């Protein structure tokens, strides 16, 4: 019985395994444009030698180092932690440092700037609006009881593993903007906060150390707020960190509609009844 189960799991794993294609070189088709300098959109095809482990970022940096120094690209950590190198790779928003060329089909890889962001130059986009939406949902813990000035009053906010589990997944967000780029609502509605900001609103809303749930609810409960999500789910499918912003949005909607019980209120009432 156990062997059969293992066999089944192995079959499923084989099905889901990413097909790797080993090539000695690929052609990078790089989107080039500098609108401020009056340069129109065109694509540069650059042949780059690759190995099995070469990432798209490695290939781009090779092209920049040895073929064309003028390619505009933003990157930093090279290990999917900083979220700087987001771009459209073969039409799908991905992190260049987290995408191996061997995972991609075809010998030509097209790299373009992220959609839904104002374009600056080549593969670089402007994140101001994205960060502004993020700031709008107040992505930090607000609690008046936390008196950090008076050390005597400084207290520790206890949190059980169950409480942590409620938001842990959403705290993995690296603000790379891939979900924002994939969102069909953001494409039409510039006031829509986007999946990143909304999932972060939920992350802090459900955190039992935070006491500003109502204010955060009021921020997202707007004409252009959380209700404009069409639940296409593309944000979750492109997230490189498994955050699942669409889930956060639906959970927060449940709270706004009153379908989900407000665990914070329940816990608070329990605490009060204990004190009384």
């Amino acid at each position: 019985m156990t062997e059969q189960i293992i066999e089944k799991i192995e079959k499923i794993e084989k099905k889901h395994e990413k097909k790797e294609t080993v090539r000695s070189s690929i052609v990078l088709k790089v989107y080039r444009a500098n609108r401020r300098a009056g340069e129109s959109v065109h694509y540069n095809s650059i042949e780059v030698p690759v190995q099995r482990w070469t990432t798209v970022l490695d290939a781009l940096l090779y092209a920049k180092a040895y073929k064309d120094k003028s390619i505009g690209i933003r990157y930093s950590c090279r290990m999917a932690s900083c979220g700087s190198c987001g771009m459209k790779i073969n039409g799908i928003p991905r992190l260049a440092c987290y995408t191996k060329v061997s995972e991609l089909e075809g010998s030509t890889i097209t790299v373009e700037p992220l959609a839904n962001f104002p374009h600056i130059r080549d593969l670089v986009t402007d994140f101001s609006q994205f960060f502004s939406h993020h700031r709008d949902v107040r992505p930090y813990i607000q609690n008046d009881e936390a008196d950090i000035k008076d050390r005597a009053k400084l207290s520790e906010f206890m949190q059980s593993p169950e409480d942590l589990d409620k938001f842990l997944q959403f705290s993995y967000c690296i603000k790379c903007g891939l979900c924002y780029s994939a969102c069909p609502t953001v494409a039409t509605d510039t006031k829509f906060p986007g999946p990143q900001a909304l999932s972060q609103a939920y992350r802090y809303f459900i955190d039992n150390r935070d006491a500003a749930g109502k204010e955060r609810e009021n921020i997202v409960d707007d004409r252009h707020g959380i209700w404009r999500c069409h639940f296409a789910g593309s944000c979750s499918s492109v997230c490189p960190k498994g955050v699942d912003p669409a889930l956060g949005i639906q959970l927060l909607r449940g709270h706004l509609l009153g379908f989900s019980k407000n665990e914070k209120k329940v816990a608070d009432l329990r605490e009060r009844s204990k004190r009384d």
Partner: protein
Amino acid sequence: MTMLRESQIMKIHYITGIAALFVVAVHILMRLIIPFSLSLEYENVIANYHNIPYVLLLESILVLIAIHGFNGLRIILLELRQSKAWEDSVTILTIVAMMAVIAYGTRTIIVANGSGF
């Protein structure tokens, strides 16, 4: 211009949508009691309008679908452009259109029922 919070509007939107599914299903099933072509004959249609529970069902279909449909239209239009003037005019226009449709539909029901106008 905000009379209701967006979450309240959307709650109404979802409730009217689900309720409309139910009443429209009843309405379609009522058509199947007798052969379909026969159910659309003048005498049968007028007879339906004289049946008070059926009249109430038709009125509820009218109200539910008007609210759900026009709010859906408002949402689509809100996504097209983002400016306060556009948003306020879209909201006012859809509310007025919704009320006009409900008023005209209700008038038709009352006239066919023969109890007024």
